[in-house]
């Protein structure tokens, strides 16, 4: 529970080929370091789950880690397309990518049901859209009191849930603050959980907006300073908006993408 170990070791022991891997962080605290380690270790046939695939899944998809993507918004925020995601969906490169598409509200509700030990969640959503016709994990349920029909989505319980946080103490208790997205739900819904952190402290001091996750529900903690760059870690470093913009030309062509990944990820020293 909350064992502190090197990131490479944590990924090796917790992430296996074919796993369903959720990696969350809503714009903030995106676990890039963990994603890069998964790429370096050459994991294959993963089902990747994220509300916003963002650059991290664009990279993992382009490097061939994923057979399937579960998501709700697949763009480069404020910039445009995720070219590797598009190349996989439109042209099957490096290999075809199965997609399971939701809305933010629906995918979020799936995490909540997963964290709550319920088989499904109910929401006002999807009605009249094209999504139920394309996504098998959208159904309806009838209110036993009013007879009203609502949308239902199944619980999401990933094999592995990975998030990045600002701090952990030496017992593996975790604190994150700022925009916390669905990170707590990701940890609680997953069979195994890995939290990378900016720093390991002797004692966690609860901060304004701070969310503490007790060690006994955390699988492993890995010290990964800067582990959410080029996204940001409130209190540590800002979002590298320039890199998000630079990613557009880098990722547009397969060769430039592969070259960049070789130079900046594959040949990088594991943290």
């Amino acid at each position: 529970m909350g064992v502190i170990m090197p990131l490479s070791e944590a990924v090796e022991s917790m992430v296996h080929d074919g796993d369903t891997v959720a990696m969350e962080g809503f714009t903030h605290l995106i676990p890039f370091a963990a994603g890069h380690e998964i790429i370096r270790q050459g994991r294959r046939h993963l089902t990747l789950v994220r509300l916003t695939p963002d650059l991290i899944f664009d990279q993992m998809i382009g490097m061939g880690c994923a057979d399937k993507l579960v998501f709700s918004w697949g763009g480069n925020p404020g910039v445009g397309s995720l070219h590797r995601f598009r190349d996989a969906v439109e042209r099957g490169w490096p290999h075809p990518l199965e997609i399971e598409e939701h809305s933010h509200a629906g995918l979020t509700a799936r995490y909540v049901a997963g964290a709550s030990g319920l088989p499904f969640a109910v929401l006002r959503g999807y009605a009249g859209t094209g999504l139920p016709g394309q996504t098998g994990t959208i159904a309806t349920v009838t209110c036993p009191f009013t007879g009203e029909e609502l949308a239902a989505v199944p619980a999401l319980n990933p094999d592995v849930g990975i998030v990045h946080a600002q701090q952990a103490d030496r017992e593996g208790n975790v604190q994150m603050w700022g925009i916390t997205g669905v990170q707590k739900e990701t940890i609680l819904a997953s069979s195994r959980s890995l939290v990378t952190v900016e720093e390991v402290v002797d004692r966690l001091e609860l901060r304004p907006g701070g969310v503490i996750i007790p060690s006994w529900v955390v699988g492993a903690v890995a010290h990964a300073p800067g582990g959410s760059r080029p996204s940001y870690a409130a209190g540590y470093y800002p979002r590298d908006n320039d890199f998000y913009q630079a990613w557009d030309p880098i990722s547009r062509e397969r060769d430039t993408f592969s070259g960049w990944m070789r130079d900046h990820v594959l040949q990088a020293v594991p943290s």
Partner: protein
Amino acid sequence: MSAASGDMMAVAAARALSDGQSCFVGIGAPSTAANLARATHAPRLALIYESGCIGSKPTRLPLSIGDGELAETADAVVPVPEIFAYWLQPGRIDVGFLGAAQLDRFANLNSTVIGSYRVPTTRLPGAGGAPEIAGCCKQVLVMIRQSRRSFVSQLDFRTSVGFGDGPGDRARLGLRGGGPAMVITDLGVLVPDPDSCELVLTRIHPGVEPDDVRAATGWDLQVSADLSRTEAPTEEELAALRRLQQAEEVPVAGR
């Protein structure tokens, strides 16, 4: 689209917001318009971002809906499950802002795919918060650049519902929000006809003629009998817009 027409679109959208309203904002044009409104006639406009930020008061235009400044300047930051369950879903939010790649005559929107879903010509980002914003907000404002590519007779995919297939459809679908109140483009403003629910051109921006708008619409566009002309952006509006656009990225506050 010229810078001028982009400004006009932002200004027209900002003017559609009233002070004291709550507004669910996506990134890009909606964020520009909402922040312009806050900087001009609606200082008490409550901006809500799906990242969980409620009452954000950014001094610059964020690149993403989760930028640090949105959290640092917010009245409250809540988890993403809460923003959808407790804030958007119950219909507490007055105005939802949406953009899209395609729009049809009933203001249904497509931001998912061009071509077929399984074999797309162009895969777009997808739904994000749009289906529930369109369903739950008291009213929806759509911002979209107008052309025959975007104003289509038939959507390639329906990502969010405007008035569906026409009168009564929202009620049949159980959508409790009022639906699209206005569509703001770089050419003019369209509003749904109260009876037919079909979009009608009611205003044109300076320098635009009705035929320009018809030519940029993929269906036989209805034009209001008393078509009016949008007032040009004021100096104050343009100055506020420049300030927002030129403001520098500021680093996240230290620990």
